[in-house]
């Protein structure tokens, strides 16, 4: 579904605005206390998003990308979830230290989330109008009638045909793409500063995926919102993201501005991900796959979590956890925004 020529429309990444970024996650840890032991889902994730910027978080299932997002939203199930350390600074304010009620008021109005499966994420027994209007009724104290008018407006805005007639319909009466538009409309309702989209197109078929992503990108541009796009679809990322963070085993293993990562990945895992994209010019050949399984979070391998699957693993990879190195050119010039948590990043990028 990736159309390469589309990338010209992507707004230039904004230089980090003076002062604090919109959202900054610092050294976040999340663990789940289960009967079998402690599952370390997120182990020291740091990233930041500015207004109008799109950060794509890439990774396999179980890499901790959704858990990080849920921690930011404050919708983790606690218990069994626990955040032993870390900071989530939103507009300079640590969300983890906020009283529950103030945190709640930020949810939905300042930070909103779009979920993967719109059918199960929308309440089956309420009309979409009621569910959209609920945002205005709870956060803005609007009347039922006014909130319904707002709901129609929102549905128009996400291009749902005959919005006025359909505002009283239930989620199951809409098609998959339309339902995801309703999810988007719900997230956009109060024009939040930050939107977290957790695999917004995974449950949709390919043609609809493109429409929904375009809509999301368009609305983001209009409202100058920060967007965290969680996905495992590299094609989607190329179109809309400004920068990428690749996660593996609850850590960020590589960060980079979007186009550089396709040209020169600095981590063997990213390399593996890129190699497993089907390519037209290699038709007929066997598709590359990263061998092995994602790590068991109850028992993460020592050293680099990727070492059992890494084709280039050495002894040091099994003993030392690599830090996120700053990636530079061969001559030592800085590559802004690039980092790689690989002991052998130099060989990977310049080799």
């Amino acid at each position, binding site marked *: 579904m990736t159309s390469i020529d589309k990338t010209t429309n992507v707004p230039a990444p904004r230089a980090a605005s003076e002062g604090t970024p919109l959202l900054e996650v610092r050294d976040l840890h999340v663990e789940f206390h289960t009967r079998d032991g402690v599952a370390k889902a997120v182990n020291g994730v740091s990233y930041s998003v500015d207004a109008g910027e799109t950060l794509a978080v890439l990774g396999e299932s179980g890499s901790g990308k959704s858990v990080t997002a849920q921690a930011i939203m404050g919708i983790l199930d606690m218990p069994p979830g626990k955040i032993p350390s870390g900071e989530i600074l939103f507009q300079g304010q640590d969300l983890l230290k906020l009283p529950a009620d103030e945190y709640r008021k930020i949810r939905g109005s300042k930070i909103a*989330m779009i*979920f993967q499966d719109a059918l199960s994420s*929308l309440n089956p027994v309420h009309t979409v109008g009621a569910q959209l209007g*609920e945002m205005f009724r709870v956060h803005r104290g609007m009347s039922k009638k006014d909130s319904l008018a707002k709901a129609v407006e929102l549905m128009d805005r996400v291009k749902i045909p005959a919005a006025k007639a359909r505002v009283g319909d239930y989620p199951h009466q809409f098609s998959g793409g339309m339902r995801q538009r309703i999810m988007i409309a719900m997230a956009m309702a109060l024009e939040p500063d930050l939107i977290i989209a957790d695999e917004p197109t995974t449950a949709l078929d390919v043609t609809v995926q493109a429409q929904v992503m375009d809509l999301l990108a368009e609305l983001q541009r209009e409202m100058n919102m920060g967007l965290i796009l969680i996905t495992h679809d590299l094609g989607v990322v190329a179109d809309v993201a400004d920068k990428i963070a690749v996660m593996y085993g609850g850590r960020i293993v590589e960060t980079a501005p979007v186009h550089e990562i396709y040209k020169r990945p600095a981590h063997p895992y990213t390399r593996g991900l890129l190699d497993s994209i089907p390519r037209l010019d290699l038709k007929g050949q066997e598709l590359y796959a990263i061998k092995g399984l994602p790590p068991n979070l109850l028992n993460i391998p020592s050293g680099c979590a990727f070492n059992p699957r890494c084709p280039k693993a050495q002894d040091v990879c099994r003993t030392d956890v690599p830090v996120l190195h700053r990636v530079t050119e061969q001559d030592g010039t800085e590559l802004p925004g690039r980092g790689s948590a690989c002991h052998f990043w130099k060989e990977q990028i310049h080799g």
Partner: protein
Amino acid sequence: MGRYVIRRLLQMIPVFIGSTFLIFIMVYALGDPVAALFGDKAPDPATAARIRKDLYLDRPLWEQYLHYMGQIFQGDFGTAFNGQPVTELMASAFPVTLRLTLVAITIEIVVGITLGVVSGLRRGRTIDTTLLVLTLVVISVPTFVTGYLLQYLLGVKWGWVRPTVSPDAPLNELILPGIVLALVSLAYVTRLSRTSIAENTKADYVRTAVAKGLPRRRVITRHLLRNSLIPVVTFIGTDIGALMGGAIVTERIFNIHGVGYQLYQGILRNNSPTVVGFVTILVIVFLLANLLVDLLYAVLDPRIRYA
């Protein structure tokens, strides 16, 4: 929706005929009603034959059934052995039982669902475990034990309430019998709503509701509860019928002159018109309650549409 209701009502006809016929046979199998009429004395053969002829008892069973049904549709449910028309017995018994059922259902809904919600939201905590054990105890103890026990303690020993209910059966006297009657169902409602709530708290739409920044109270009442109540409604609906007919034990204990009491007397005295008449009405109540549940389903869950 209208067509669905009509279809359901039409489906009731065979069910109605079948169930009443079965009851008719069973009551017939109980023994000779004429002999029962004379009690311990041996009946005079001529008189007995005359009574048999008057009551159509000399005809084959199916003819008796047809005759009975024909009479019922003319509003004639026959007379009990004491000469009172059965319809008169019904007129005095059904309002009493209905009141008792209402008291029991209200207690069941209010207390049962509240406990279920509390328990379901705190799954695995002390209060949840306590309630689970308590409901298990309540389910295991038969109604006549709890009934006599509460009657003795509250009515006789401590004198908080009247131990028996007066013939008028005013609401305030029906509270204790209502509790006794509701107790087992209440335990089921608690467990059912607990499981349903505990399951749905993990649902995606509840997570969405939280992510929308709704206050916890609104998440629970508007999003969680409505979805969780669907299975509970089914149970309560079918329970209405069960409570109306199954109050025999409770009505005996507290001497309430309702349906259960009349049925008990009818069975004891081999009084077939009373038994068949009352049970026929109960069958109709059951069928209507079930239809109501199915219609309520569609109201609670818009994904269910009847055509």
